[in-house]
């Protein structure tokens, strides 16, 4: 996935979907975090974004609540299901 700045926004090309997206700083920041640390939980991402932006983590979690599905639906991120250990 290629993410490049484009003026005040970001342009993102996904080879998987063949689609090009225009992102704002917040969406690009999420992708940037996942590019650095794959497999982060939503809580970890929000905490990192809180540290970057200075906003409260709780506020970011609230904002991101509805945004996760958007990012998943557009194919920019995917939800990793936790491994389940079979009961012995």
């Amino acid at each position: 996935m290629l993410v490049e700045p484009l003026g005040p926004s970001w342009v993102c090309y996904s080879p998987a979907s063949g689609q090009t997206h225009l992102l704002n700083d917040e969406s690009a920041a999420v992708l940037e975090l996942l590019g650095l640390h794959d497999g982060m939980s939503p809580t970890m991402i929000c905490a990192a974004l809180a540290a970057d932006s200075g906003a409260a983590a709780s506020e970011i979690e609230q904002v991101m609540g509805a945004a996760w599905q958007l990012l998943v639906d557009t194919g920019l991120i995917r939800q990793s299901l936790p491994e389940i250990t079979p009961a012995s």
Partner: protein
Amino acid sequence: MSDKEQSLPAGGSARRRLVRGAFGVPAVLTVASGSVAAASNMNCIAKSGTFPPVYQGANPPTTDTFIRIRVYNDPASNLRYVRGQDVAAPYRVNVDPGFMTASQVWRFNVNQNQTVGSPSNTPAASTLVAVNRWAALRFDTNGVLVGVGDGGSGGPAGYAVTGSCWNSFG
């Protein structure tokens, strides 16, 4: 959560551009090329099937923008016709050789929504009397004007259109 592949912004850091003390709603706008819209219209064409019946009424509804012409009655024979002179010039840019000229008329069966036979110079267009029926012009996928109403099994294949889009009927 994970990204699908490597997603580190190559030209800078989005995280550094976050406004201090505020975090806006993430936004994603998918960019589409014009070819996508064209493909959508082609899907519209592909789904086209039968044609609507001939419109009956004093005037076409204002919300309906089908490219069509009026149907006329020949008092001498009591047969219905459409007139070449009613086809506006912009629609004559690409015309099938079998389509009527501006001076010709074409017998039209309003029950089957189809033209009958070939365009003719008789009866004279000026002797025809307008009736409250309207027939859609038919264009092929190359935008060539090929007929009026339904092409049936023998006529040139084509589709009814509005001023902005090919139409699907069925």
